[in-house]
């Protein structure tokens, strides 16, 4: 056995290293090109497979079934034989690219189909009601959402594709496997070359399958945001529709089989979702404080119902309207004007945000003093900073104070809700006395609050007066923030994103942020321009219709802002409902969900351990 791996055989192989590299390069090249073809075919056929036109669906069905139920090697051979017939002499390289691309296109199209199928019907209906055409709906609304779900199985497909390029060895494809075979055949030094090939394949495929795992976990962590039970559905679906590629499903299928949400909540690390929250409304932050303060409750357990969600969404709209009204006083025309313009609404939004921050600031001072007895820094920024640090260890009493403080302000309905949740979190008996106490607290807190706010607002106002340009750009930034503009890579830096979302607008950072914002805005405008051009039917109408285009762009803009806000809420609330149901289901027997050690070593633990 040992002489198979004798040193001189390794030496012989080592002498061929340029050829090994070349073969490895060919494998990578074939894989990359085939992946491009497979992606293109997969998306096209995936979209066609949910088409309303039956013949198109049949075509995709036939394509998928044929490709999936006939061996790849046979398909490669057919391509190999068919091109000379057509008078084309195609190198094995290109035959490989084509055949493997088409083969995996079939698999990817199923993945895409599942992804589209996992998007809630409401999204289609909403898009339709907003006047999107079918194709616009598909490519602007549905696919961008589906991508998140599609990505993990796609990465698995990519890994499979790389592995499958080895088939080309049998038609002299010149890639890694072919080199290994021919080296082994020529020298009869079988051992080393296959080990090296295995390592090289592993080097490509392992990162891909890790990526798949990572994406899957991330999708799972975000599932409440956009996909609902899509991951599970996908897990089952891919297992169903792509026979033999159960490793697509790998973990998803395993967990789907394991019986759903309960297990997932137990085993899945939801930390990423906490760290990379979507841009949120300031009032959410308030609600989050209440949640954090209420102790035991997990981040997934916001006790909202759909009705409450709708009410709160309504309320926030009214909040902003009220902000605008306050700004304009009795001047109806002014209010109407401000409300019509996006900049006006954004200004109101920012005021609201500041108010919430101020509210949190007061609360933070109160609880900090209660706990440490030390004086807090006077600067509003420092207070906000302190609050963020303190947010995690609030006392219930302090939280009551928060609730009642908020109640005294204009947003009583929302905070009533916050309060309801605080009350409902288990210390209901204490709530009465606590709120009585907080009455006193709020009485003392108001005087503190008012100067605090005045200082804060005055400070930022002067700062802004000094930098009028900066203000405008800050609004642009705000706008991008409200648009929920997804910048690739943003999610990959959760901490950065979180700070971007959460930190109160630090004037010093505005320059950097606004540069960013301007770039984003430009991109947005370009995109809208393209969309508007498409919507108005091409260049010939654009020329004499510039104003209309602007209006259209604004319209789309507004719709996007509103949709983003509404979406955010709907997701949060839906999540709340799920969590509610889950809580009801799991709380009676929390111990029952833990596997006894040794009998069935904890699956979740193991999964995590291995993921690390």
């Amino acid at each position, binding site marked *: 056995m040992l002489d198979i791996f004798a040193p001189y055989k390794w030496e012989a192989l080592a002498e061929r290293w340029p050829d090994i590299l070349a073969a490895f390069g060919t494998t990578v090249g074939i894989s990359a090109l085939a992946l491009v073809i497979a992606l293109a075919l997969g998306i096209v056929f995936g979209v066609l497979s949910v088409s309303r036109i039956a013949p198109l669906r049949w075509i995709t069905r036939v394509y998928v*079934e044929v490709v*999936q*139920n*006939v*061996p*790849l*090697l*046979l398909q490669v*051979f*057919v391509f190999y*034989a*068919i091109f000379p017939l057509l008078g084309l002499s195609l190198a094995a390289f290109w035959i490989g690219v084509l055949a493997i691309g088409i083969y995996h296109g079939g698999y990817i199209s199923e993945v895409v189909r599942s992804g589209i199928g996992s998007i809630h019907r409401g999204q289609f209906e909403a898009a339709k009601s907003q006047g999107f055409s079918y194709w616009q709906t598909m490519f602007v609304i549905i696919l961008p959402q589906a991508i998140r779900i599609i990505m993990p199985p796609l990465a698995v497909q990519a890994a499979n594709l790389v*592995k*499958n*390029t*080895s*088939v080309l*060895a*049998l038609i002299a494809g010149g890639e890694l*496997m072919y080199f*290994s075979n021919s080296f*082994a055949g020529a020298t009869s030094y*079988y051992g080393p070359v*296959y080990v090296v*090939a*295995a390592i090289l*394949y*592993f080097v490509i*495929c*392992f990162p891909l*399958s890790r990526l798949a795992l990572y994406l899957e976990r991330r999708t799972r962590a975000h599932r409440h945001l956009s996909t609902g039970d899509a991951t599970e559905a996908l897990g*089952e679906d891919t*297992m*169903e529709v792509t*026979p*033999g590629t*159960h*490793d697509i499903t*790998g973990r998803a*299928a*395993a*967990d*789907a*089989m*394991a*019986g759903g949400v309960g*297990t997932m909540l137990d085993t899945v690390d939801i930390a990423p979702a906490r760290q990379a929250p979507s841009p949120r409304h300031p009032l959410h932050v308030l609600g989050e404080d209440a949640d954090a303060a209420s102790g035991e409750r997990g981040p997934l357990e916001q006790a909202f119902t759909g009705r409450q969600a709708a009410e709160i969404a309504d309320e926030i709209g009214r909040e902003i309207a009220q902000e605008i009204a306050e700004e304009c006083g009795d001047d109806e025309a002014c209010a109407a004007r401000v409300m019509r313009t996006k900049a006006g609404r954004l200004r109101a939004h920012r005021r609201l945000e500041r108010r919430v921050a101020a509210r949190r600031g007061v609360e933070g001072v109160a609880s900090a003093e209660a706990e440490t007895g030390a004086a807090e820094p006077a600067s509003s920024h420092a207070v906000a900073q302190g609050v963020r640090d303190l947010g995690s260890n609030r006392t219930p009493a302090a939280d009551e104070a928060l609730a009642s403080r908020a109640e005294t302000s204009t947003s009583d309905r929302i905070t009533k809700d916050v309060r309801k949740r605080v009350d409902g979190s288990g210390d209901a008996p204490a709530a009465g006395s606590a709120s009585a106490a907080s009455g006193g607290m709020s009485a003392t807190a108001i005087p503190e609050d008012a100067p605090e706010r005045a200082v804060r607002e005055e400070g930022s106002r002067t700062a802004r007066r000094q930098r009028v340009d900066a203000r405008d750009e800050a609004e642009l930034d705000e706008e991008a923030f409200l648009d929920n503009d997804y910048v690739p890579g943003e999610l990959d830096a959760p901490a950065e994103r979180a700070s971007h979302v959460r930190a109160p607008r630090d004037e010093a950072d505005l320059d950097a942020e606004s540069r960013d914002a301007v770039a984003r805005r430009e991109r947005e405008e370009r995109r809208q321009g393209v969309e508007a051009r498409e919507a108005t039917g091409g260049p010939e109408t654009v020329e004499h219709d510039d104003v209309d285009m602007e209006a259209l762009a604004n319209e789309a803009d507004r719709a996007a802002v509103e949709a983003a806000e509404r979406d955010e809420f709907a997701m949060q609330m839906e999540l709340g409902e799920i969590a509610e149901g889950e809580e009801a289901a799991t709380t009676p027997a929390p111990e*029952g*969900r*833990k*596997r*006894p*050690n*040794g*009998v*069935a*070593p904890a*699956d979740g633990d*193991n999964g995590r351990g*291995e993921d690390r």
Partner: protein
Amino acid sequence: MSDIAALFTWVNMRFLLQGLGMTLLISALAIACSVVLGTVISVVRTSNSRVLRGVATVYIEVFKNTPLLLWIMFTFFVAQLPPIGAAVLAFTLFTSASVAEIVRGGLASVPFGQYEAARSQGFSTPQTYLLIILPQALRNMVPALLSQFVTTIKDTSYLWGAMALQELMGRGMILMNSYNSTVQIFAIFGIMAAIYFVVCFTLSQIVRAYQRRLKEARAG
């Protein structure tokens, strides 16, 4: 047309169907061995020993991330096994990594109460697995295992190219040597594809039907 009709002789068909028999034999053997090995790996992977868990994980990752063809070559040329043995071993190694994941899912699908119940009734750990858990898990694993069977059937087509084992693909290629016209060559390709398709598609449909039934059973 008569060219193609000339292909459909009893001898040719029997020749091909024998190839299919070999394909199915190797696939079935490989799947059977993989289920055993995969179950062992899966159980080892949930073991309390860190070392054992590590070994199982490495095994799964290595075989999941390298091509099957490589292992076929390896068992045939490096380990110098006879063709059928090499084929079954290569497929078992490769497939058991996937089956281990399937078994993991299957085991996870059995409610925890079953473990507790078995333990409370005085079953030992092996008894718990063999008598209580695995039979239940198997029911949930059947669709995925059948899917794996489909994959294996398709992948056995490598065997002709790698070690000249006369399964369906090999028989088809041999048959091609005795026919010269392009039409006939493509007809043979078509016949092979059709046979593979019928077998694999039938299995996929069974998987789907079974899965639908499982889903309904779970829902109802």
